């Protein structure tokens, strides 16, 4: 049976014996694999080059990306990834080097990593940085492992719990559990801050640390952040900062100055390296002086100071009490080049302006939408804000329906149902790279949807209408997972 064109797998295309590339006849003796290792059949697709290109181009057109439209996916900082990043990452000296080359042969690469370490340390207010972690969640793991190593190094071994606010990313408790800690959830107060009294009640001699995102996932700056950190420090605990929301703070506030002991950066959010399916992510960690010896390594250090006309000699340095490697080789080097490029093109003033505009854009959207939608915590937001996707006079409409309907307008939906402490959450992060025209078009769509919710709710509950596929059955997809497709067996083509 022929599949509809959008559902076709590459195995539904082609014909037996069809090839994209034909190799010339061998003019040397064929050297085969040892007997028994060569498989009898290999069911690869048999398609022409043009069929392959059309197939994958069509698939790419089914995707939404930052290059096709506005992408206000809260907490993900889906901002524009400048093309110049791709140019520098493809320079042959970067793209064609190998991590096993001797340091003397790849001084340019090490220089990029060294200055990126230094710049990230300056931006975050930290004494040291390791670029090793492969993404945000691995940066978190590195951070909590360092906290653990720090306590154990001091013989302070009775500390067994980590405090996590109820607005935190789900990866925070997962990280703490993986590091062998008990997780204690701290509620938020009525202004969306960590409840300081509840936090203080948990600050005792068993406290290993606190994992805190600032601004938090409600898009709000923790108003008592210094007191919160002071309370944890007074009990002997350390504070881990989740840098997911660093896009609000560049050049404005430094987590290290606020008292954070360790923080991870998401290069793929704040520093414009590719994101989502394109990735890979990159999650460097920055630490205060007392954790520098525990950094995952090796990191890049200056081995010989340079002179006036002479570059320094860079080399690898393994911190004395390192928690070890988190990844083979040296992290996602291609992402380091892109983030380095971004910081260099922005400069110090440019980075501050990035955050100022990210915060301005979010507040502009919030101000425009707050008459039609309930703002969960109505105070000036940072780079994102949280709306409730529900109305008392439109009972059958949910946040999910609003999101699906937004797709009809060419917008990617906001984050749904997170953070968990708000009902029917719509979490909206416009980023600084959108124009006022785009923001206004999004506002118009949201206002129209609020009207439709009362006048024609079925338009929302049956959305989307203009996408290649309509409403997916997410319940069935979750309950009856199909994780592999059966590849049709084809007769082996024998040369």
């Amino acid at each position, binding site marked *: 049976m022929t599949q509809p064109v959008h559902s076709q797998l590459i195995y539904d295309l082609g014909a037996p014996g069809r090839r994209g590339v034909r190799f010339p006849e061998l003019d040397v003796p064929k050297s085969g694999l040892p007997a028994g290792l060569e498989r009898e059949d290999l069911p690869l697709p048999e398609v022409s080059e043009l069929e392959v290109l059309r197939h994958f181009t069509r698939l790419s057109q089914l995707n939404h990306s930052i290059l096709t439209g506005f992408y206000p996916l809260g907490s993900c900082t889906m901002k524009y990834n400048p093309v110049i990043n791709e140019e520098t990452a493809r320079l042959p000296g970067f793209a064609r080097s190998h991590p096993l080359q001797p340091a003397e042969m790849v001084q340019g690469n090490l220089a990029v990593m060294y200055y990126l370490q230094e710049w990230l340390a300056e931006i975050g207010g930290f004494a040291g940085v390791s670029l090793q972690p492969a993404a945000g969640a691995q940066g978190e793991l590195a951070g909590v492992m360092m906290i653990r190593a720090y306590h154990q190094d001091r013989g302070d071994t009775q500390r067994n719990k980590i405090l996590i606010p109820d607005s935190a990313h*789900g990866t925070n408790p997962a990280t703490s559990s993986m590091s062998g800690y008990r997780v204690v959830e701290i509620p938020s107060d009525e202004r969306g801050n960590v409840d300081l009294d509840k936090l203080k009640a948990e600050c005792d001699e068993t406290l290993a640390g606190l994992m805190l995102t600032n601004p938090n996932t409600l898009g709000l700056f923790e108003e008592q952040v210094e007191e919160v950190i002071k309370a944890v420090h007074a009990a002997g605990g350390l504070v881990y900062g989740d840098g997911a929301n660093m896009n609000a703070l560049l050049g404005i506030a430094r987590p290290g100055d606020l008292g954070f002991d360790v923080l991870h950066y998401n290069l793929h959010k704040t520093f414009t390296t590719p994101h989502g399916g394109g990735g890979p992510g990159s999650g460097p960690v920055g630490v205060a002086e007392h954790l520098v010896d525990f950094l995952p390594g090796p990191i890049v250090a200056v081995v010989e100071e340079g002179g006036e006309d002479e570059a320094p000699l860079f080399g690898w340095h393994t911190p004395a009490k390192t928690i070890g490697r988190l990844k083979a080789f040296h992290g996602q080097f291609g992402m380091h080049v892109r983030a380095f490029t971004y910081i260099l093109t922005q400069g110090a003033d440019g980075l501050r302006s990035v955050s100022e505009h990210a915060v301005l854009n979010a507040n502009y959207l919030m101000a425009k939408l707050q008459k039609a939608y309930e703002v969960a915590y109505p105070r000036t937001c940072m780079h994102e804000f949280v709306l409730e996707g529900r109305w008392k006079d439109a009972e059958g409409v949910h946040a999910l329906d609003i999101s699906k309907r937004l797709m009809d307008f060419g917008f990617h939906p906001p984050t*749904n*149902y*997170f953070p*968990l402490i708000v*009902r029917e959450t719509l979490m909206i992060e416009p980023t600084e790279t959108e124009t006022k025209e785009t923001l206004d078009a999004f506002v118009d769509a949201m206002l129209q949807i609020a009207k439709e919710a009362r006048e024609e709710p079925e338009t929302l509950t049956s959305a989307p209408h203009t996408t290649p596929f309509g409403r997916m059955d*997410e*319940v069935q997809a*979750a*309950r009856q997972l199909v994780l592999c497709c059966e590849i049709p067996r084809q007769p082996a083509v024998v040369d």
Partner: protein
Amino acid sequence: MNIPEDRRYTQNDEWIKLDGESATVGISDYAQDQLSDIVYFEVSLGEGDSLSAGDAFGTVESVKAASDVYAPAAGELVAVNAALADTPEAINSDPYGSWMIKLKLADAAELDGLMDAAAYKAYIEEREA
């Protein structure tokens, strides 16, 4: 919203129902409604494990969110409703029949500190306001 009077309720929307010396535990109609379609349920502890009040014993996951389920009172875990792992949708259709675990209570009087149906109803209304 269905709130039977034969059991007690927690602020985290679990119910606990005394049954002789032991008690069954599940989540309320309100909880399943808030979660929407439940697609996964898992008990992370085994029979014989002892729990304090407030200890997480399992996870319930819907298309919206994953949420821990907590023991309303202290006791020893004596039975797990294994059938729910294969039919998590039963928690939606019959939240009060779908018990998750059975506890041998350390002190049955602990239940007196939990909400009865009327108090729980008021607690839901307060959050809906």
